[in-house]
């Protein structure tokens, strides 16, 4: 048996920690009290939370009770998560996204070959953020998954379709140009040394 005050505190603590709605009968079993007692405490709690200065609210969801922040706090919560959240992609993720965008459909090992490093984490991040998706499987040994960009990817960049991506030829030229430059430098150095 619990003191009424302790019962209230315990129920509040449980609801605070729960990740999903809890039914009265679940709560009653947890605290080893009758469902009537639990329901009475919850009803009182619900009322208390309604008072203006209070930031939480007890909502009935899917046949159970769940604690939430009141709607007036939600825009601030959103701001909080945006600020120190995952805004922006890591360098690795951005590189991987660029390769997928231009070489899709493409397998993980092809990406890794081009980047020269393992890219599992970057791919997982991009999948999670719904910027890329599995678009099929490549014929051949192991039938590896092929990745491509998503509709969201286009939307975020304000593109109508992939043909609006800047043409790739530019890069090939840039790479070639820098390769040529390097060779020239090497040749020159060779000359100086000889």
């Amino acid at each position, binding site marked *: 048996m619990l003191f009424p005050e302790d019962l209230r505190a315990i129920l509040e*603590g449980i609801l*605070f*920690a729960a*990740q999903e709605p809890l039914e009265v009968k679940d709560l009653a079993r947890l605290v080893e009290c009758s469902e009537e007692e639990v329901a009475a405490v919850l009803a009182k709690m619900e009322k208390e939370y309604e008072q203006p200065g209070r930031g939480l609210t007890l909502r009935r969801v899917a046949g159970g009770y769940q604690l*939430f*922040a009141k709607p007036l706090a*939600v825009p601030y*919560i*959103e701001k909080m*998560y*945006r600020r120190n*959240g*995952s*805004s*922006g*992609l890591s*360098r690795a993720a*951005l*590189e991987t*996204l*660029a*390769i997928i*965008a*231009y*070489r*899709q*459909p493409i397998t993980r*090992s*092809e990406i890794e*070959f*081009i*980047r*020269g490093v393992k890219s599992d984490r970057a791919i997982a991040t991009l999948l999670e*953020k*719904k*910027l890329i998706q599995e*678009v099929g499987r490549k014929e051949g040994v192991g039938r590896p998954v092929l990745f*491509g*960009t998503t509709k969201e*990817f286009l939307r*975020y*960049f304000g*593109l109508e379709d*992939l*043909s609006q*991506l*800047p043409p*790739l030829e530019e*890069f*090939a030229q*840039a*790479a070639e140009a*820098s*390769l040529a430059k*390097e060779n020239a430098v090497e040749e020159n150095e060779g000359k100086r040394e000889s």
Partner: protein
Amino acid sequence: MAYVVRLEIFEGPLDLLMHLIEKNQVDIYDIPIAQITAQYLEYLETLEKLDLEVASEFLVMAARLLAIKAAMLLPRPTRPEGEAGEEMEEEDPRQELVRRLLEYKKFKEAAHYLQRLHREEERYWARSNSREMYEPFFQEENPLAGVSLFSLVDALRQVLQRIVDEGRTEEEITLVRDEVTVRDKMREIMARLFLRPEGLCFTDLFGGQTRRSEVVVTFLALLELIKMGRVRAYQEGIFAPIILYARMEKVRREG
């Protein structure tokens, strides 16, 4: 032997030595080195008998202990005359070991303290999944916030630059690109059309293709299939979508 019955695993030679000192209830400032060394070696032997790997640190310490034991047996050097009145601090061979043991023990105590602190902290419960819970209420988040098309392009440029810097050749890279042949593409188109007896929209055939070469190959493959009569293209009216069908009867006869 006591160790065989209840073999404790020690974090290292210092941990083992400390255990022996505590177990024998001897004073750390006056370690009976012969006794402790004997027990230390006994423990290592037990480990070996049990085929447990003995870390090299334990062996190094065993050597140190034997060296200290030997040093303790040597007669102390007699002081030169004239300096007799002054205390000359002789280094006890055990001194360095004692210092290290005390230093280690200090942190071991600190570790115990941290453990208690954590247990105390565990009495409280923090929420961990809050973000997931609120995300459905947020306005849609743009994961590419702050990323411009330019930075995407720039990222790719850097990858290509790295390929150049690492001296990898363009052939190596194109190898993985594995250019699609018209023949491969014909097979792929047929496979897709079989799965879509209701027809496939012409533009969908090119979905996701970004390389000009691939678009060209796909188009050539399609023309070839139409020419061979294996694919039928149908358009309801001008500007209406072109729908492609596989001609099943043609295939079956061939098959």
